[in-house]
């Protein structure tokens, strides 16, 4: 009854070979009736809707591998879906012949690939290295004892990455610091960037019709990737987003009274761009008041914020919250958060 099952990769492989070999392109029914993996299940003149849906998914899989699968309209019958032809132009499939790497560059690329140890970017970098190995360049010796790693642990990362790649609108709930209720955001994703260890989504917020940057750690629940496509107007969004974040970092400064010799002193004084002023206090830069307040609250009595006031308030608020949570209903100590 059921024909012998062909593994997915065999079907995909056969499809790629067939579409590279055709110059004029093949129609969907030509493909389904002839290509290994579809042909044994194809019914001439019958209902092939399940097979057609599988073909749609296979096209997505192939395109996600970077293979340029093209759709060509029948010039004699434009607009007719059944007349659409599919092909993979060989010139667009092949890596351009002038792209070569030195052994030193190859070693660097392999190290760059190991930065991702989890999530989809890890699979992506593994496949990239697999493809580049075929160029036959041996890498220089790998760097010993060096294991740099970038994490993509936020639950929102993967859906944002998918929405970014497909250029589709994504919806999510976002909790701004200082607000108690999350608000619903509908955005066109433009870039995912990591700045000072935090992942951010740079996007066009459709609600306010303006660009906005969202911290992934403040996204509540799982973002919903829609089917609504959009067109990007610019390029280089990622580097612009990082430049903007750097400007905010440079502009925001705080003066901190830090007890010398403490953990807070050792770590804060090593912060990028930190310096000591004439009073012996530390001047540090930051990009986000709430994030810095979280860190400073962790240092407890080792740090006192002198200015700005909003940072003073944020740190005091956190310390009070922690104190209340750890003194309530225990009978140990009073809830004396007002001193």
């Amino acid at each position, binding site marked *: 009854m059921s024909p012998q099952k062909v593994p997915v990769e065999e079907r995909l492989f056969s499809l790629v070979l067939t579409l590279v070999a055709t110059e004029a392109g093949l129609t969907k029914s030509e493909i389904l009736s002839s290509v290994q993996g579809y042909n044994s299940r194809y019914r001439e003149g019958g209902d092939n809707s399940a097979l057609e849906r599988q073909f749609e998914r296979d096209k997505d899989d192939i395109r996600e591998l970077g293979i340029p699968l093209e759709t060509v309209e029948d010039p004699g019958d434009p607009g007719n879906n059944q007349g659409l032809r599919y092909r993979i132009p060989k010139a667009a499939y*092949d890596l351009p012949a002038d792209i070569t790497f030195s052994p030193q560059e190859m070693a660097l*690329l392999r190290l*760059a690939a190991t*930065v991702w140890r989890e999530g989809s970017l890890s699979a992506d970098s593994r496949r*990239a290295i*697999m493809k580049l190995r075929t160029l036959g360049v041996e890498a220089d010796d790998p760097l010993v004892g060096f294991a740099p790693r970038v994490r993509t642990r936020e639950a929102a990362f993967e859906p944002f990455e998918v929405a970014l790649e497909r250029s589709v609108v994504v919806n999510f709930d976002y909790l701004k610091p200082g607000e108690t209720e999350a608000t619903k955001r509908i955005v066109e994703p433009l870039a995912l960037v990591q700045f000072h260890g935090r992942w951010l989504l740079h996007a066009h917020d459709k609600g306010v019709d303006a660009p906005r940057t969202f911290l992934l750690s403040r996204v509540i629940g799982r973002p919903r990737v829609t089917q609504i496509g959009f067109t990007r107007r610019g390029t280089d969004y990622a580097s612009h987003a990082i430049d903007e974040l750097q400007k905010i970092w440079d502009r925001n400064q705080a003066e901190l009274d830090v007890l010398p010799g403490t953990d807070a002193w050792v770590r804060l004084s090593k912060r990028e761009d930190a310096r000591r002023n004439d009073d012996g206090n530390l001047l540090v830069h930051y990009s986000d008041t709430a994030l810095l307040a979280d860190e400073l609250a*962790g240092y407890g009595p080792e740090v006192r914020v002198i200015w700005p006031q909003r940072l003073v308030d944020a740190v005091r608020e956190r310390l009070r919250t922690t104190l209340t949570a750890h003194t309530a209903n225990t009978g140990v100590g009073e809830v004396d958060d007002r001193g």
Partner: protein
Amino acid sequence: MTVAEPAGPRDARDKLALLLSLIPYLMDHESASVDEVAAAFDVSPKQIRDAVYLIAVSGLPGESHSYLPGDLFDIDWDELEQHDRIALTHTVAIDDTPRLSAREAAALIAGLQYLSSLPEHADRDAMSSLMAKLERGTAAGAAQVAVAPAALRDTVATIREAIEKRTQVDLDYVSARGDSERRTVDPLRIESVNDDWYLRGWCHLREAVRTFRLDRIDHLVSTGQPISEHAAHVVLPERLFQGSAEDLTVSVDVVAAALPLIADYIPDDAARIQDGDVVHTKVRVAHYHGLKRMVARFAGQVTVTAPEEARIAVADWARAGAARYEDPTA
């Protein structure tokens, strides 16, 4: 030192990428042993054999739609079966390295950006030409993913040199308790997680493998002394922080959204009981000094529920912090 497990293809797309990459590789190597190819692609010999069997029966439907021999790839079967060597004898349709996908290129470019502050990669032009080549290696441009360069200090260069030469370093280390000690360390590996950098090595003072945060290290010098016997036999565990028998286990309530942020502190075998927005679980800490700092960083998101001494340690810490704003001279 540990050797990373070779990562095998995990899904159909990985397997397809291997098939498409194997063909140009095998065309460049007239006869290659299965082991050699497996090593080149970081997969098992079995995965290579499976892929080659599949390639050998694949090809084009042809005029007759019946996949006749001339329309298929072919290999030297005797070579494979008798000598475990692969030789392609006939190819169809493809013969070249496939382009990178938008995400594949982006993964490598963002990885390079992260590493671009390493001293030996100071040559900006070389780095940006490498990134431009990757971008050009895609059909439609790389995806928009970027990582700001890590802020690296001179200590990284000194430690890496010591690791390569297998020599010791001396350093001052401030613990979470707040005390500073001079230590001699056999450096084994530098690791990072996003913006945080760590030295892992054999600590002569503690006589054990320890993980040191680079931003807690002061006055690091390379002594030139060869590393000790202990260090030479150490197998570094994958997890940065290892539990020890003296660790304290503390019960906490964590807001569900914050759970991934403290995942490193939660033992693998700890129960995670969801209760509305909150998860009841446990964290493992070396001492309450580390705990109070961690909990105070997650105000309102992580609350210690037991034991009582741990709650008191956190409350005292927060109270002392708050008190600094009431009487600045205190």
